[in-house]
Protein backbone atom coordinates (compact mmCIF):
# COMPACT_ATOMS: atom_id res chain seq x y z
CA UNK A 1 0.00 0.00 0.00
CA UNK A 2 2.74 2.31 1.02
CA UNK A 3 4.63 1.47 -2.14
CA UNK A 4 1.62 2.31 -4.28
CA UNK A 5 1.16 5.60 -2.46
CA UNK A 6 4.81 6.45 -2.92
CA UNK A 7 4.68 5.60 -6.61
CA UNK A 8 1.54 7.69 -7.05
CA UNK A 9 3.05 10.62 -5.25
CA UNK A 10 6.18 10.21 -7.34
CA UNK A 11 4.07 10.43 -10.44
CA UNK A 12 2.33 13.51 -9.11
CA UNK A 13 5.66 15.13 -8.33
CA UNK A 14 7.09 14.38 -11.71
CA UNK A 15 3.95 15.81 -13.30
CA UNK A 16 4.53 18.89 -11.19
CA UNK A 17 8.07 19.16 -12.40
CA UNK A 18 6.85 20.76 -15.61
CA UNK A 19 5.77 23.81 -13.61
CA UNK A 20 8.17 26.58 -12.71
CA UNK A 21 8.05 26.95 -8.96
CA UNK A 22 8.42 23.39 -7.73
CA UNK A 23 11.80 22.33 -9.16
CA UNK A 24 13.13 25.75 -8.23
CA UNK A 25 12.25 25.18 -4.60
CA UNK A 26 13.91 21.76 -4.54
CA UNK A 27 16.92 23.27 -6.27
CA UNK A 28 17.13 26.04 -3.68
CA UNK A 29 17.18 23.52 -0.81
CA UNK A 30 19.82 21.44 -2.63
CA UNK A 31 21.89 24.53 -3.18
CA UNK A 32 21.61 25.67 0.44
CA UNK A 33 22.75 22.19 1.51
CA UNK A 34 25.69 22.47 -0.91
CA UNK A 35 24.56 19.58 -3.08
CA UNK A 36 24.21 20.97 -6.60
CA UNK A 37 27.30 19.62 -8.23
CA UNK A 38 30.83 19.32 -6.91
CA UNK A 39 32.28 22.27 -8.84
CA UNK A 40 29.60 24.70 -7.66
CA UNK A 41 30.05 23.50 -4.08
CA UNK A 42 33.81 24.12 -4.20
CA UNK A 43 33.13 27.54 -5.72
CA UNK A 44 30.58 28.34 -2.99
CA UNK A 45 33.03 27.33 -0.26
CA UNK A 46 35.65 29.49 -1.97
CA UNK A 47 33.23 32.44 -1.95
CA UNK A 48 32.53 31.84 1.78
CA UNK A 49 36.26 31.82 2.59
CA UNK A 50 36.60 35.00 0.56
CA UNK A 51 33.70 36.60 2.46
CA UNK A 52 35.28 35.59 5.78
CA UNK A 53 38.55 37.26 4.78
CA UNK A 54 36.92 40.29 3.15
CA UNK A 55 35.01 41.14 6.36
CA UNK A 56 38.04 42.01 8.55
CA UNK A 57 39.94 43.52 5.58
CA UNK A 58 36.89 45.74 5.02
CA UNK A 59 36.78 46.78 8.68
CA UNK A 60 40.36 48.03 8.42
CA UNK A 61 39.62 49.65 5.06
CA UNK A 62 36.69 51.58 6.54
CA UNK A 63 38.76 52.59 9.55
CA UNK A 64 41.43 53.99 7.23
CA UNK A 65 38.65 55.83 5.32
CA UNK A 66 39.60 54.33 1.98
CA UNK A 67 36.41 52.45 1.17
CA UNK A 68 36.22 53.57 -2.45
CA UNK A 69 39.94 53.12 -3.16
CA UNK A 70 38.96 49.45 -3.45
CA UNK A 71 36.31 50.46 -6.02
CA UNK A 72 38.97 52.14 -8.16
CA UNK A 73 41.22 49.07 -7.80
CA UNK A 74 38.46 46.66 -8.79
CA UNK A 75 37.48 48.62 -11.91
CA UNK A 76 41.15 48.99 -12.80
CA UNK A 77 41.52 45.19 -12.91
CA UNK A 78 39.75 45.01 -16.29
CA UNK A 79 42.70 46.00 -18.54
CA UNK A 80 44.83 43.41 -16.72
CA UNK A 81 42.13 40.80 -17.11
CA UNK A 82 42.12 41.37 -20.87
CA UNK A 83 45.93 41.38 -21.06
CA UNK A 84 46.10 38.17 -19.01
CA UNK A 85 43.59 36.63 -21.40
CA UNK A 86 45.68 37.65 -24.41
CA UNK A 87 48.97 36.48 -22.85
CA UNK A 88 47.52 33.08 -22.00
CA UNK A 89 46.04 32.87 -25.49
CA UNK A 90 49.50 33.57 -26.90
CA UNK A 91 51.33 31.13 -24.61
CA UNK A 92 48.90 28.26 -24.27
CA UNK A 93 46.55 28.72 -27.19
CA UNK A 94 43.61 29.01 -24.81
CA UNK A 95 42.43 32.30 -23.36
CA UNK A 96 40.31 31.24 -20.44
CA UNK A 97 43.17 30.41 -18.13
CA UNK A 98 42.26 31.80 -14.71
CA UNK A 99 45.82 32.02 -13.24
CA UNK A 100 46.93 34.32 -16.09
CA UNK A 101 43.77 36.40 -15.87
CA UNK A 102 44.08 36.82 -12.09
CA UNK A 103 47.79 37.68 -12.32
CA UNK A 104 47.02 40.33 -14.93
CA UNK A 105 44.18 41.64 -12.77
CA UNK A 106 46.46 41.91 -9.73
CA UNK A 107 49.13 43.83 -11.64
CA UNK A 108 46.70 46.27 -13.18
CA UNK A 109 44.82 46.79 -9.89
CA UNK A 110 48.16 47.58 -8.25
CA UNK A 111 48.92 50.06 -11.03
CA UNK A 112 45.48 51.60 -10.49
CA UNK A 113 46.12 52.16 -6.78
CA UNK A 114 49.54 53.60 -7.63
CA UNK A 115 47.89 56.00 -10.10
CA UNK A 116 45.37 57.15 -7.48
CA UNK A 117 48.22 57.95 -5.09
CA UNK A 118 50.37 59.52 -7.81
CA UNK A 119 47.54 61.82 -8.94
CA UNK A 120 47.20 63.06 -5.38
CA UNK A 121 50.92 63.45 -4.80
CA UNK A 122 51.76 65.15 -8.10
CA UNK A 123 48.81 67.54 -8.39
CA UNK A 124 46.20 69.24 -6.28
CA UNK A 125 43.49 66.74 -7.19
CA UNK A 126 41.70 65.40 -4.11
CA UNK A 127 41.44 61.67 -3.31
CA UNK A 128 37.84 61.44 -4.51
CA UNK A 129 38.68 62.99 -7.90
CA UNK A 130 41.71 60.72 -8.29
CA UNK A 131 39.59 57.66 -7.47
CA UNK A 132 36.85 58.62 -9.95
CA UNK A 133 39.40 59.34 -12.73
CA UNK A 134 41.29 56.05 -12.27
CA UNK A 135 38.06 54.07 -11.95
CA UNK A 136 36.52 55.36 -15.16
CA UNK A 137 39.70 55.48 -17.25
CA UNK A 138 40.77 52.01 -16.10
CA UNK A 139 37.39 50.55 -16.93
CA UNK A 140 37.34 52.39 -20.26
CA UNK A 141 40.73 50.91 -21.21
CA UNK A 142 39.47 47.49 -20.18
CA UNK A 143 36.36 47.80 -22.35
CA UNK A 144 38.58 48.86 -25.26
CA UNK A 145 40.52 45.63 -24.72
CA UNK A 146 37.29 43.61 -24.46
CA UNK A 147 36.02 45.03 -27.74
CA UNK A 148 39.34 44.03 -29.33
CA UNK A 149 39.12 40.50 -27.90
CA UNK A 150 35.60 40.15 -29.31
CA UNK A 151 36.96 40.66 -32.81
CA UNK A 152 39.33 37.67 -32.42
CA UNK A 153 38.18 34.49 -34.17
CA UNK A 154 38.36 32.33 -31.02
CA UNK A 155 35.96 30.86 -28.50
CA UNK A 156 35.88 31.50 -24.78
CA UNK A 157 35.55 35.27 -24.62
CA UNK A 158 32.22 34.78 -22.86
CA UNK A 159 34.18 33.93 -19.71
CA UNK A 160 35.51 37.47 -19.59
CA UNK A 161 32.04 39.01 -19.53
CA UNK A 162 31.21 36.89 -16.49
CA UNK A 163 33.93 38.61 -14.49
CA UNK A 164 31.82 41.80 -14.53
CA UNK A 165 29.06 40.53 -12.26
CA UNK A 166 30.46 37.15 -11.18
CA UNK A 167 29.26 33.64 -11.86
CA UNK A 168 30.14 30.62 -9.73
CA UNK A 169 27.76 28.20 -11.44
CA UNK A 170 29.48 26.24 -14.20
CA UNK A 171 32.97 27.14 -12.98
CA UNK A 172 35.66 24.65 -13.92
CA UNK A 173 36.94 22.51 -11.05
CA UNK A 174 40.56 23.67 -11.33
CA UNK A 175 39.39 27.29 -11.23
CA UNK A 176 37.14 26.62 -8.24
CA UNK A 177 40.06 25.02 -6.38
CA UNK A 178 42.32 27.94 -7.28
CA UNK A 179 39.81 30.48 -5.96
CA UNK A 180 39.16 28.49 -2.78
CA UNK A 181 42.90 28.06 -2.12
CA UNK A 182 43.62 31.74 -2.75
CA UNK A 183 40.76 32.74 -0.45
CA UNK A 184 42.04 30.37 2.25
CA UNK A 185 45.56 31.87 2.00
CA UNK A 186 44.07 35.37 2.16
CA UNK A 187 42.11 34.45 5.28
CA UNK A 188 45.27 33.01 6.84
CA UNK A 189 47.21 36.21 6.08
CA UNK A 190 44.45 38.30 7.68
CA UNK A 191 44.58 36.16 10.84
CA UNK A 192 48.40 36.18 11.01
CA UNK A 193 48.76 39.94 10.49
CA UNK A 194 45.64 40.92 12.45
CA UNK A 195 47.56 42.67 15.23
CA UNK A 196 49.72 44.70 12.84
CA UNK A 197 46.75 45.71 10.68
CA UNK A 198 44.81 46.79 13.75
CA UNK A 199 47.72 48.88 14.93
CA UNK A 200 48.06 50.80 11.65
CA UNK A 201 44.35 51.24 11.07
CA UNK A 202 43.63 52.43 14.56
CA UNK A 203 46.48 54.76 15.41
CA UNK A 204 49.15 55.04 12.74
CA UNK A 205 51.01 57.81 14.57
CA UNK A 206 51.27 55.78 17.74
CA UNK A 207 52.45 52.79 15.71
CA UNK A 208 55.11 54.93 14.03
CA UNK A 209 56.23 56.32 17.38
CA UNK A 210 56.42 52.80 18.79
CA UNK A 211 58.83 51.84 16.04
CA UNK A 212 56.55 49.87 13.71
CA UNK A 213 57.35 50.04 9.99
CA UNK A 214 54.11 51.88 9.29
CA UNK A 215 54.68 52.39 5.58
CA UNK A 216 55.35 48.73 4.98
CA UNK A 217 52.31 47.74 7.05
CA UNK A 218 50.22 50.24 5.09
CA UNK A 219 51.43 48.57 1.92
CA UNK A 220 50.49 45.20 3.41
CA UNK A 221 46.97 46.46 4.20
CA UNK A 222 46.57 47.80 0.66
CA UNK A 223 47.96 44.53 -0.68
CA UNK A 224 45.35 42.51 1.22
CA UNK A 225 42.62 44.74 -0.26
CA UNK A 226 44.02 44.11 -3.75
CA UNK A 227 44.14 40.33 -3.20
CA UNK A 228 40.54 40.39 -1.91
CA UNK A 229 39.43 42.28 -5.01
CA UNK A 230 41.25 39.95 -7.40
CA UNK A 231 40.08 36.75 -5.70
CA UNK A 232 36.53 38.16 -5.70
CA UNK A 233 36.51 38.76 -9.46
CA UNK A 234 35.18 35.38 -10.46
CA UNK A 235 32.51 35.01 -7.76
CA UNK A 236 31.34 38.58 -7.09
CA UNK A 237 32.54 40.33 -10.24
CA UNK A 238 34.62 43.45 -10.58
CA UNK A 239 31.79 45.98 -10.42
CA UNK A 240 30.38 44.74 -7.13
CA UNK A 241 33.34 43.21 -5.30
CA UNK A 242 33.83 46.42 -3.31
CA UNK A 243 30.49 45.66 -1.63
CA UNK A 244 31.98 42.55 -0.02
CA UNK A 245 34.53 44.82 1.67
CA UNK A 246 32.15 47.61 2.69
CA UNK A 247 28.78 46.10 3.60
CA UNK A 248 29.76 43.34 6.08
CA UNK A 249 32.10 45.79 7.82
CA UNK A 250 29.33 48.40 8.06
CA UNK A 251 26.94 45.70 9.34
CA UNK A 252 29.42 44.64 12.01
CA UNK A 253 29.71 48.27 13.08
CA UNK A 254 26.00 48.12 13.94
CA UNK A 255 26.56 45.21 16.30
CA UNK A 256 29.69 46.22 18.13
CA UNK A 257 32.07 49.05 18.80
CA UNK A 258 35.05 46.88 19.63
CA UNK A 259 37.48 46.37 16.77
CA UNK A 260 38.16 42.69 17.44
CA UNK A 261 34.49 41.83 17.66
CA UNK A 262 33.75 43.93 14.56
CA UNK A 263 36.39 42.06 12.55
CA UNK A 264 35.03 38.69 13.69
CA UNK A 265 31.40 39.65 12.99
CA UNK A 266 32.29 41.17 9.61
CA UNK A 267 33.96 37.89 8.65
CA UNK A 268 30.84 35.99 9.74
CA UNK A 269 28.47 38.32 7.85
CA UNK A 270 30.69 38.29 4.78
CA UNK A 271 30.82 34.52 4.62
CA UNK A 272 27.08 34.22 5.36
CA UNK A 273 26.28 36.66 2.54
CA UNK A 274 28.58 34.77 0.16
CA UNK A 275 26.98 31.45 1.14
CA UNK A 276 23.41 32.74 0.67
CA UNK A 277 24.20 34.55 -2.57
CA UNK A 278 26.17 31.74 -4.18
CA UNK A 279 23.51 29.16 -3.22
CA UNK A 280 20.59 31.22 -4.49
CA UNK A 281 22.39 31.94 -7.73
CA UNK A 282 23.28 28.27 -8.20
CA UNK A 283 19.66 27.20 -7.73
CA UNK A 284 17.60 29.91 -9.37
CA UNK A 285 18.20 30.47 -13.02
CA UNK A 286 19.25 33.88 -14.34
CA UNK A 287 20.60 35.20 -11.05
CA UNK A 288 24.17 36.52 -11.38
CA UNK A 289 26.19 35.39 -8.36
CA UNK A 290 27.68 38.79 -7.61
CA UNK A 291 24.30 40.52 -7.51
CA UNK A 292 22.88 37.79 -5.25
CA UNK A 293 25.84 38.02 -2.83
CA UNK A 294 25.62 41.82 -2.63
CA UNK A 295 21.85 41.77 -2.10
CA UNK A 296 22.29 39.16 0.67
CA UNK A 297 24.88 41.38 2.33
CA UNK A 298 22.51 44.35 2.00
CA UNK A 299 19.69 42.29 3.53
CA UNK A 300 21.90 41.39 6.52
CA UNK A 301 22.67 45.11 6.93
CA UNK A 302 19.00 46.10 6.88
CA UNK A 303 18.10 43.32 9.32
CA UNK A 304 20.85 44.56 11.66
CA UNK A 305 19.61 48.16 11.75
CA UNK A 306 17.25 47.57 14.74
CA UNK A 307 20.23 46.19 16.67
CA UNK A 308 22.02 49.51 16.29
CA UNK A 309 18.95 51.39 17.52
CA UNK A 310 18.64 49.15 20.59
CA UNK A 311 22.38 49.36 21.30
CA UNK A 312 22.34 53.14 21.06
CA UNK A 313 19.45 53.36 23.50
CA UNK A 314 21.09 50.99 25.98
CA UNK A 315 24.53 52.56 25.76
CA UNK A 316 23.46 56.20 25.50
CA UNK A 317 24.42 58.35 28.49
CA UNK A 318 21.45 59.57 30.52
CA UNK A 319 19.99 62.78 29.13
CA UNK A 320 20.59 65.64 31.52
CA UNK A 321 17.86 68.25 31.88
CA UNK A 322 18.58 71.51 30.07
CA UNK A 323 19.83 74.17 32.45
CA UNK A 324 17.47 77.12 32.67
CA UNK A 325 18.64 80.03 30.52
Amino acid at each position, binding site marked *: MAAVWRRASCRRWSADAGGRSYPDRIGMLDALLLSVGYNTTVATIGAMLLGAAAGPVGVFL*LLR*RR*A*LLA*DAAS*HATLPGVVLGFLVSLWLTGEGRSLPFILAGAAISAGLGVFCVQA*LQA*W*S*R*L*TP*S*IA*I*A*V*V*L*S*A*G*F*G*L*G*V*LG*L*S*YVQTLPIAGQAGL*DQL*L*VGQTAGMRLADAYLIAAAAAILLLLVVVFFKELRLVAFDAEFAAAAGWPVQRLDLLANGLVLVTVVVGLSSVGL*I*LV*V*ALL*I*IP*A*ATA*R*LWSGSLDRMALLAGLFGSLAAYLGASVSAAAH*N*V*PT*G*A*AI*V*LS*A*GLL*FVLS*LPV*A*AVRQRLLAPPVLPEPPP
Partner: protein
Amino acid sequence: MNPFVAIDLPALLIAILASIACALPGSLLVLRGQALLGDALSHMVLPGIVVAFLITGQMTSGAMLLGALAAGLIGAGLIALVRRLTKIEASAAMGLVFTVMFAFGVLLLASDAARKVDLDLNHALYGHLEAALWLEPAGWGDLLSPAIWPTAPRPLLLLVPVVVLLALAVVLTFKELRLASFDPDYATLQGFRPRLIDFVLTAATTLAAVSAFDAVGSILVIALLTCPAAVARLCTDRLSTHIALSVGFAALIAVAGYGSAAALETSGSAAIASMGGIAVAVAVAVTRLRRRRRRETPSAAGPGIDPDSAVRPLRPGSV
Protein backbone atom coordinates in the same frame (compact mmCIF):
# COMPACT_ATOMS: atom_id res chain seq x y z
CA MET B 1 23.90 59.46 -48.99
CA ASN B 2 26.86 60.96 -47.21
CA PRO B 3 28.27 58.22 -44.88
CA PHE B 4 29.80 60.72 -42.47
CA VAL B 5 26.50 62.56 -41.98
CA ALA B 6 24.57 59.30 -41.59
CA ILE B 7 26.91 57.35 -39.28
CA ASP B 8 29.63 59.46 -37.66
CA LEU B 9 27.90 62.80 -37.28
CA PRO B 10 25.01 61.66 -35.03
CA ALA B 11 27.34 59.59 -32.81
CA LEU B 12 29.81 62.46 -32.60
CA LEU B 13 27.09 64.98 -31.77
CA ILE B 14 25.68 62.65 -29.10
CA ALA B 15 29.14 62.16 -27.61
CA ILE B 16 29.81 65.90 -27.51
CA LEU B 17 26.42 66.81 -26.07
CA ALA B 18 26.58 64.00 -23.50
CA SER B 19 30.04 65.19 -22.47
CA ILE B 20 28.84 68.78 -22.08
CA ALA B 21 25.70 67.73 -20.21
CA CYS B 22 27.85 65.79 -17.73
CA ALA B 23 30.61 68.40 -17.49
CA LEU B 24 28.22 71.13 -16.33
CA PRO B 25 27.14 69.48 -13.02
CA GLY B 26 30.42 67.51 -12.89
CA SER B 27 32.53 70.65 -12.67
CA LEU B 28 30.58 71.71 -9.58
CA LEU B 29 30.72 68.23 -8.03
CA VAL B 30 34.50 68.14 -8.42
CA LEU B 31 34.90 71.56 -6.80
CA ARG B 32 32.65 70.61 -3.90
CA GLY B 33 34.58 67.40 -3.18
CA GLN B 34 31.64 65.28 -4.32
CA ALA B 35 33.26 63.59 -7.32
CA LEU B 36 32.23 60.20 -6.03
CA LEU B 37 28.58 61.24 -5.85
CA GLY B 38 28.68 61.07 -9.66
CA ASP B 39 30.10 57.56 -9.42
CA ALA B 40 27.34 56.56 -7.01
CA LEU B 41 24.56 58.23 -9.02
CA SER B 42 25.56 56.61 -12.29
CA HIS B 43 25.30 53.21 -10.61
CA MET B 44 22.12 53.99 -8.68
CA VAL B 45 20.03 55.04 -11.67
CA LEU B 46 20.23 51.52 -13.13
CA PRO B 47 17.35 49.94 -11.14
CA GLY B 48 15.17 53.00 -11.85
CA ILE B 49 15.75 52.67 -15.58
CA VAL B 50 15.09 48.93 -15.56
CA VAL B 51 11.91 49.28 -13.48
CA ALA B 52 10.58 52.01 -15.77
CA PHE B 53 11.48 49.79 -18.67
CA LEU B 54 9.70 46.75 -17.23
CA ILE B 55 6.56 48.79 -16.45
CA THR B 56 6.22 50.52 -19.81
CA GLY B 57 7.80 47.72 -21.86
CA GLN B 58 9.66 50.10 -24.12
CA MET B 59 12.58 52.49 -24.12
CA THR B 60 10.69 55.78 -23.95
CA SER B 61 12.85 58.63 -22.81
CA GLY B 62 10.18 60.09 -20.52
CA ALA B 63 9.60 56.95 -18.48
CA MET B 64 13.31 56.21 -18.28
CA LEU B 65 14.08 59.73 -17.13
CA LEU B 66 11.41 59.62 -14.45
CA GLY B 67 12.50 56.19 -13.21
CA ALA B 68 16.15 57.16 -13.12
CA LEU B 69 15.47 60.50 -11.44
CA ALA B 70 13.40 58.72 -8.79
CA ALA B 71 16.12 56.10 -8.27
CA GLY B 72 18.84 58.74 -8.06
CA LEU B 73 16.97 60.80 -5.49
CA ILE B 74 15.95 57.71 -3.49
CA GLY B 75 19.59 56.61 -3.51
CA ALA B 76 20.80 60.03 -2.36
CA GLY B 77 18.20 59.90 0.43
CA LEU B 78 19.29 56.38 1.41
CA ILE B 79 22.93 57.48 1.60
CA ALA B 80 21.95 60.28 3.98
CA LEU B 81 19.83 57.83 5.99
CA VAL B 82 22.64 55.25 6.28
CA ARG B 83 25.04 57.97 7.38
CA ARG B 84 22.65 59.11 10.07
CA LEU B 85 21.86 55.60 11.30
CA THR B 86 25.36 54.15 11.35
CA LYS B 87 27.72 57.12 11.55
CA ILE B 88 30.01 55.53 8.96
CA GLU B 89 31.86 57.96 6.70
CA ALA B 90 30.31 59.34 3.52
CA SER B 91 32.21 57.30 0.94
CA ALA B 92 31.50 54.01 2.73
CA ALA B 93 27.79 54.86 2.99
CA MET B 94 27.82 55.69 -0.71
CA GLY B 95 29.58 52.42 -1.55
CA LEU B 96 27.04 50.48 0.50
CA VAL B 97 23.98 52.06 -1.12
CA PHE B 98 25.15 52.15 -4.72
CA THR B 99 26.42 48.57 -4.81
CA VAL B 100 23.15 47.26 -3.38
CA MET B 101 21.07 49.33 -5.82
CA PHE B 102 23.27 48.34 -8.77
CA ALA B 103 23.05 44.67 -7.73
CA PHE B 104 19.26 45.03 -7.68
CA GLY B 105 19.37 46.52 -11.17
CA VAL B 106 21.59 43.66 -12.40
CA LEU B 107 19.16 41.15 -10.89
CA LEU B 108 16.23 42.81 -12.69
CA LEU B 109 18.19 42.91 -15.94
CA ALA B 110 18.87 39.18 -15.73
CA SER B 111 15.18 38.37 -15.13
CA ASP B 112 13.08 36.80 -17.85
CA ALA B 113 10.96 39.91 -18.26
CA ALA B 114 13.97 42.08 -19.09
CA ARG B 115 15.44 39.48 -21.42
CA LYS B 116 12.36 39.71 -23.63
CA VAL B 117 13.06 43.35 -24.34
CA ASP B 118 16.19 44.83 -25.74
CA LEU B 119 18.17 45.85 -22.65
CA ASP B 120 21.11 44.05 -21.14
CA LEU B 121 24.04 44.66 -18.83
CA ASN B 122 26.47 45.46 -21.62
CA HIS B 123 24.11 48.11 -22.93
CA ALA B 124 23.79 49.62 -19.45
CA LEU B 125 27.56 49.62 -18.94
CA TYR B 126 28.85 50.66 -22.36
CA GLY B 127 25.81 52.24 -24.04
CA HIS B 128 25.36 51.95 -27.77
CA LEU B 129 26.86 55.05 -29.26
CA GLU B 130 27.47 53.35 -32.60
CA ALA B 131 23.82 52.41 -32.96
CA ALA B 132 22.80 56.03 -33.51
CA LEU B 133 22.15 56.46 -37.22
CA TRP B 134 20.59 59.41 -39.00
CA LEU B 135 19.67 58.28 -42.48
CA GLU B 136 17.25 61.06 -43.43
CA PRO B 137 19.65 63.87 -44.40
CA ALA B 138 21.25 63.15 -47.76
CA GLY B 139 24.17 65.47 -47.18
CA TRP B 140 25.44 68.50 -45.26
CA GLY B 141 22.98 70.84 -47.01
CA ASP B 142 19.95 68.99 -45.65
CA LEU B 143 21.04 69.60 -42.06
CA LEU B 144 20.22 73.29 -42.41
CA SER B 145 16.49 72.78 -42.95
CA PRO B 146 14.57 72.58 -39.67
CA ALA B 147 12.10 70.12 -41.16
CA ILE B 148 14.64 67.33 -40.88
CA TRP B 149 15.67 67.98 -37.27
CA PRO B 150 12.86 65.94 -35.63
CA THR B 151 14.10 62.83 -37.46
CA ALA B 152 17.38 62.89 -35.51
CA PRO B 153 18.23 59.83 -33.34
CA ARG B 154 16.35 59.74 -30.03
CA PRO B 155 19.35 60.29 -27.70
CA LEU B 156 20.18 63.44 -29.64
CA LEU B 157 16.62 64.77 -29.31
CA LEU B 158 16.85 64.14 -25.55
CA LEU B 159 20.31 65.63 -25.07
CA VAL B 160 19.73 68.96 -26.84
CA PRO B 161 17.05 70.25 -24.41
CA VAL B 162 18.93 68.77 -21.42
CA VAL B 163 22.13 70.63 -22.33
CA VAL B 164 20.20 73.88 -22.87
CA LEU B 165 18.37 73.42 -19.56
CA LEU B 166 21.54 72.66 -17.57
CA ALA B 167 23.47 75.52 -19.17
CA LEU B 168 20.65 77.95 -18.40
CA ALA B 169 20.46 76.66 -14.83
CA VAL B 170 24.20 77.17 -14.29
CA VAL B 171 24.16 80.68 -15.80
CA LEU B 172 21.03 81.82 -13.95
CA THR B 173 21.98 80.45 -10.52
CA PHE B 174 25.70 81.20 -10.82
CA LYS B 175 25.78 83.57 -7.84
CA GLU B 176 23.89 81.16 -5.59
CA LEU B 177 26.03 78.21 -6.69
CA ARG B 178 29.20 80.13 -5.96
CA LEU B 179 28.06 81.17 -2.53
CA ALA B 180 26.65 77.79 -1.54
CA SER B 181 29.73 75.96 -2.81
CA PHE B 182 32.40 78.06 -1.15
CA ASP B 183 30.78 79.39 1.99
CA PRO B 184 27.63 77.49 2.94
CA ASP B 185 27.50 79.12 6.39
CA TYR B 186 27.52 82.63 4.96
CA ALA B 187 24.99 81.55 2.34
CA THR B 188 22.66 80.39 5.09
CA LEU B 189 23.08 83.69 6.92
CA GLN B 190 22.18 85.52 3.72
CA GLY B 191 18.93 83.58 3.46
CA PHE B 192 19.99 81.08 0.82
CA ARG B 193 19.33 77.43 1.43
CA PRO B 194 22.48 75.37 0.70
CA ARG B 195 20.50 72.16 1.25
CA LEU B 196 18.20 73.18 -1.59
CA ILE B 197 21.23 73.75 -3.81
CA ASP B 198 22.56 70.31 -2.82
CA PHE B 199 19.24 68.79 -3.83
CA VAL B 200 19.11 70.66 -7.14
CA LEU B 201 22.71 69.67 -7.94
CA THR B 202 21.93 66.02 -7.21
CA ALA B 203 18.87 66.23 -9.47
CA ALA B 204 20.88 67.98 -12.21
CA THR B 205 23.62 65.33 -12.03
CA THR B 206 21.02 62.58 -12.27
CA LEU B 207 19.41 64.31 -15.25
CA ALA B 208 22.75 64.60 -17.03
CA ALA B 209 23.72 61.03 -16.15
CA VAL B 210 20.42 59.62 -17.40
CA SER B 211 20.30 61.53 -20.65
CA ALA B 212 23.88 60.44 -21.39
CA PHE B 213 23.35 56.92 -19.98
CA ASP B 214 21.32 55.58 -22.90
CA ALA B 215 23.89 56.68 -25.43
CA VAL B 216 27.18 56.08 -23.67
CA GLY B 217 26.58 53.81 -20.66
CA SER B 218 27.20 54.27 -16.96
CA ILE B 219 30.99 53.95 -16.88
CA LEU B 220 31.53 56.67 -19.44
CA VAL B 221 29.14 58.86 -17.45
CA ILE B 222 31.55 58.68 -14.49
CA ALA B 223 34.44 59.60 -16.78
CA LEU B 224 32.53 62.53 -18.25
CA LEU B 225 31.42 63.81 -14.84
CA THR B 226 34.99 63.79 -13.49
CA CYS B 227 37.77 63.91 -16.08
CA PRO B 228 37.04 67.24 -17.87
CA ALA B 229 36.44 68.92 -14.52
CA ALA B 230 39.66 67.46 -13.11
CA VAL B 231 41.64 68.86 -16.06
CA ALA B 232 39.97 72.25 -15.63
CA ARG B 233 40.69 72.16 -11.90
CA LEU B 234 44.41 71.97 -12.72
CA CYS B 235 44.19 75.00 -15.01
CA THR B 236 42.31 77.67 -13.09
CA ASP B 237 41.09 78.95 -9.74
CA ARG B 238 38.17 81.01 -11.05
CA LEU B 239 34.75 79.36 -10.85
CA SER B 240 33.46 80.80 -14.14
CA THR B 241 36.66 79.85 -16.00
CA HIS B 242 36.56 76.43 -14.37
CA ILE B 243 33.05 75.70 -15.63
CA ALA B 244 33.79 77.06 -19.12
CA LEU B 245 37.03 75.07 -19.36
CA SER B 246 35.28 71.91 -18.15
CA VAL B 247 32.74 72.23 -20.95
CA GLY B 248 35.47 72.94 -23.51
CA PHE B 249 37.66 70.03 -22.41
CA ALA B 250 34.58 67.76 -22.35
CA ALA B 251 33.88 68.53 -26.01
CA LEU B 252 37.57 68.09 -26.93
CA ILE B 253 37.79 64.75 -25.10
CA ALA B 254 34.62 63.56 -26.83
CA VAL B 255 35.93 64.50 -30.30
CA ALA B 256 39.40 63.05 -29.70
CA GLY B 257 37.98 59.87 -28.15
CA TYR B 258 35.42 59.31 -30.86
CA GLY B 259 37.97 60.08 -33.57
CA SER B 260 40.46 57.54 -32.23
CA ALA B 261 37.67 54.97 -31.82
CA ALA B 262 36.61 55.50 -35.44
CA ALA B 263 40.23 55.15 -36.58
CA LEU B 264 40.81 51.98 -34.54
CA GLU B 265 37.28 50.64 -35.22
CA THR B 266 36.58 50.06 -31.54
CA SER B 267 34.00 51.02 -28.90
CA GLY B 268 33.38 54.77 -28.93
CA SER B 269 32.30 55.20 -25.32
CA ALA B 270 35.27 53.19 -23.98
CA ALA B 271 37.67 55.23 -26.12
CA ILE B 272 36.20 58.49 -24.79
CA ALA B 273 36.54 57.27 -21.18
CA SER B 274 40.16 56.28 -21.81
CA MET B 275 40.78 59.64 -23.49
CA GLY B 276 39.47 61.33 -20.33
CA GLY B 277 42.08 59.49 -18.27
CA ILE B 278 44.81 60.39 -20.76
CA ALA B 279 43.74 64.06 -20.63
CA VAL B 280 44.05 64.09 -16.83
CA ALA B 281 47.48 62.41 -17.01
CA VAL B 282 48.69 64.96 -19.58
CA ALA B 283 47.31 67.86 -17.51
CA VAL B 284 49.06 66.60 -14.37
CA ALA B 285 52.35 66.18 -16.24
CA VAL B 286 52.12 69.65 -17.82
CA THR B 287 51.30 71.45 -14.56
CA ARG B 288 54.16 69.64 -12.85
CA LEU B 289 56.64 70.56 -15.56
CA ARG B 290 55.48 74.19 -15.62
CA ARG B 291 55.77 74.45 -11.87
CA ARG B 292 59.28 73.03 -11.94
CA ARG B 293 60.33 75.44 -14.69
CA ARG B 294 58.86 78.41 -12.79
CA ARG B 295 60.81 77.42 -9.76
CA GLU B 296 64.07 77.25 -11.73
CA THR B 297 63.63 80.64 -13.45
CA PRO B 298 62.19 83.18 -10.99
CA SER B 299 59.53 85.27 -12.69
CA ALA B 300 59.81 89.00 -13.21
CA ALA B 301 57.08 89.54 -10.64
CA GLY B 302 59.69 88.90 -7.99
CA PRO B 303 60.24 86.22 -5.42
CA GLY B 304 57.44 84.84 -3.33
CA ILE B 305 54.75 85.26 -5.98
CA ASP B 306 53.98 82.09 -7.84
CA PRO B 307 51.03 82.72 -10.12
CA ASP B 308 50.58 79.05 -10.91
CA SER B 309 51.18 77.55 -7.53
CA ALA B 310 49.54 74.16 -7.54
CA VAL B 311 49.21 74.10 -3.79
CA ARG B 312 47.16 77.29 -3.59
CA PRO B 313 43.86 76.32 -2.03
CA LEU B 314 40.66 77.43 -3.67
CA ARG B 315 39.33 80.23 -1.48
CA PRO B 316 36.16 82.27 -1.79
CA GLY B 317 38.30 85.37 -2.20
CA SER B 318 40.11 84.00 -5.20
CA VAL B 319 36.96 83.35 -7.14
